[in-house]
């Protein structure tokens, strides 16, 4: 019997030894960087197609030219807003095997989800070394920092609140000017309806419906109220919340009859083509500009402020961070340097359809829309996008609650109750 036990013990200990995670390499010295970096660098992003991929490839080229010894492992995982990438990232983080660097929206989301749990390295040394404190605008620096320390390097600025419209559809309905407020919008929408044209593009978005809700929310709030909803100084029982929900529902009445049946990707494809269901207007961030260019339909498309959004620049910055225990820390830092660099940002952004975070970007490289956006970035009220203001759990809940209202029960009061609960649940204002 004793022998059995001995054998079993040996087996158990062998099995346990086999289960031990591979020891991670010791993190390199803070300031020291290998003279000639080699090896690989694994970078997570959700850029897997279109202008996004072209931009990513362009910045990878800059990286390869600067660090020829390092192999760039592009671990991009597609899926709108990074929903899929985040799932994989979460699993890797929990398993103690982070990638070397990963894409994330700057803001409260990354702070709450990654910085506070102690998963990220502070990047003060990098910002100082690369002079980033001087070339990034203060509003961005505030947004990427937690308790004074920056944690992510933003590579671009996207404007999230643009109204895109098809010129030919407007013309067909006898509309000469895009609507500037929602009253005008509903007049225009009726005109379009009479002409048999859906006024607004829509889709059953699931958790992504928070995007569209954001447009309506910003139409009925001032900047202070909007920010207050996410820092807890304004409660979600505010009348503006219900007003935005009502507006959202009312606007969707002017979408094509089958809007619930199609995905957002289908809706976007429709906008670029000529179907009966092609909407005249689509509300979307300016990542859509990259799509418009890749389809070659710039001539057919106009853009303007979303109704009641005049002077507001809702922005989101794609950023990259440095997880603790990154297996190739030196290479990750090299990557972050490229992300922060002028040539890196100027290679990436014209293709991605976004503007550089750095204030010294080369304006001549950017097209008409992006130059206009660069101007607006200087003159408009800058409001971070929801994804940068609040924890991911609230973003997901908000999307699901709004989507459930739009596609299911249609009860504004119930949706607001659920939002109040969700805000409490995600610790807004704690």
């Amino acid at each position, binding site marked *: 019997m004793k022998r059995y036990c001995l*054998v079993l013990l040996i087996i158990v200990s062998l099995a346990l030894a086999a289960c031990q995670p591979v020891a991670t390499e010791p993190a390199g010295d803070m300031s020291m960087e290998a003279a000639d970096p080699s090896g690989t660098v694994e970078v997570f992003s959700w850029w897997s197609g279109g202008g996004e991929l072209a931009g990513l490839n362009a910045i990878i080229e800059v990286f390869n030219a600067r660090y020829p010894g390092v192999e760039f492992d592009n671990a991009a995982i597609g899926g709108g807003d990074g929903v899929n990438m985040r799932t994989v990232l979460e699993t890797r983080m929990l398993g103690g095997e982070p990638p070397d660097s990963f894409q994330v929206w700057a803001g409260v989301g990354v702070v709450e989800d990654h910085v506070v749990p102690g998963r990220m390295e502070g990047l003060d040394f990098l910002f100082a070394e690369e002079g980033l404190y001087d070339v990034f605008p203060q509003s961005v620096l505030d947004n990427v920092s937690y308790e004074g320390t920056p944690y992510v390097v933003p590579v671009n600025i996207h404007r999230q609140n643009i109204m895109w419209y098809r010129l030919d559809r407007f013309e067909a309905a006898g509309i000469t000017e895009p609507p500037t407020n929602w009253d005008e919008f509903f007049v225009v929408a009726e005109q379009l309806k009479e002409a048999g044209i859906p006024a607004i593009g829509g889709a059953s978005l699931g958790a992504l419906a928070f995007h569209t809700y954001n447009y309506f929310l910003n139409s009925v709030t001032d900047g202070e109220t909007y920010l207050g909803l996410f820092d807890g100084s304004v409660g979600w029982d505010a009348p503006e919340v219900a007003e935005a929900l009502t507006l959202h529902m009312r606007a969707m009445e002017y979408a094509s009859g089958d809007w619930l049946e199609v995905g957002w990707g289908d809706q976007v494809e429709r906008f670029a083509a000529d179907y009966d269901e092609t909407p005249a207007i689509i509300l979307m961030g300016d990542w859509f500009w990259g799509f418009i260019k890749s389809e070659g339909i710039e001539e057919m498309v106009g853009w303007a402020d979303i109704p009641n959004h005049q002077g507001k620049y809702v922005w989101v910055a794609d950023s990259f961070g440095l997880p603790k225990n990154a297996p190739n820390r030196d290479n990750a830092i090299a990557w972050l340097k490229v992300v922060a660099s002028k040539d890196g940002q100027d290679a990436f952004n014209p293709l991605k359809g976004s503007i550089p975070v750095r204030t010294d970007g080369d304006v001549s490289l950017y097209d008409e829309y992006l130059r206009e956006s660069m101007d607006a970035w200087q003159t408009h009220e800058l409001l971070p996008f929801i994804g940068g203001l609040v924890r*991911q759990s609230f973003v997901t809940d908000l999307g699901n609650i709004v989507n*459930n209202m739009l596609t*299911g*029960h249609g009860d504004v009061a119930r949706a607001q109750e659920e939002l109040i609960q969700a805000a409490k649940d995600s610790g807004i204002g704690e």
Partner: protein
Amino acid sequence: MQSELSARAKSLPALLPKWLRDDRKIAILVLAPSIIAVAVFIYIFMGWTLYISVSNWDRPTLDLSFAGLKNWQRLVNDPRFHIDLRNLVLFAVGYMSQCIVIGFLLAALLNERIRGEVFFRTVFLMPFAVSAVVSGTAWRWLQVPSAGINLLIANMGFENFRPLWYMHPKLGMLAITIMGAWQFSGFVMALYLAGLRAIPDELREAAVIDGAGTIALYRHVFIPMLRPVTFTAIVLTGAGSIGNFEIPSIIGTGPGFATDTLGFYMFEQTFRSSRYGLGAAVATFMLVLSIPLVLPYLISVLREERE
């Protein structure tokens, strides 16, 4: 040559140390790694999940402090959970009945030793080899109310008949069962066909001599004899119903969560909202649901083995 080999085989135990020459000891040694792996990766993790479901871990920061039934309370009060339970019932009823009935009918037809049996068998089994993501995407397009099958119906002259399929706010789940059944019926057919082929010809002949027609033959001889196969089919399709995740991840959760499932709800809570405790509660609930399904099966298998 033969004798040389057997001589070498005989000498094999002699090569082992004395304490290993016992068959039982070798058996334990060989089985130990899998037993340990199963214990760790299945049972310990089950217990771990159960514990997380009563912990306070509802954000990315690991927090394993005891929360009591907080997560469970939240789960049973969540309207989405109620919808998911209704969806589960709809899906299980539609999916299991279709798989079993269609699978059985196909097997019965093939069992008549028709010409081209191999061809048809392959055709029926083919969907099982297709990835659920691929078939889900194809079915999604087939069932889009504004196109797909509805276009076919409209072209046949029934323009006012326009089912909403998976977009139906209450019964969307039933449309989804068609996708699932298309995929899995072929496998159930293979199960039944194997079962039918295992029934000795003498039985059939005896029944025919006794005057049994085809229907009586199936009703009184084949179906009762195929009970173990039906049992297996129920367990497999039942487990598939509980664990359904792929379909909502492809076609979305539908209007008012009409096509949401427990699996997708668990995924979204855990990985998109970092509510690990709540996600673990859903996982545990799904596990408990599957016990009444698997337990009778296990008992019958054990009983058979004993006999």
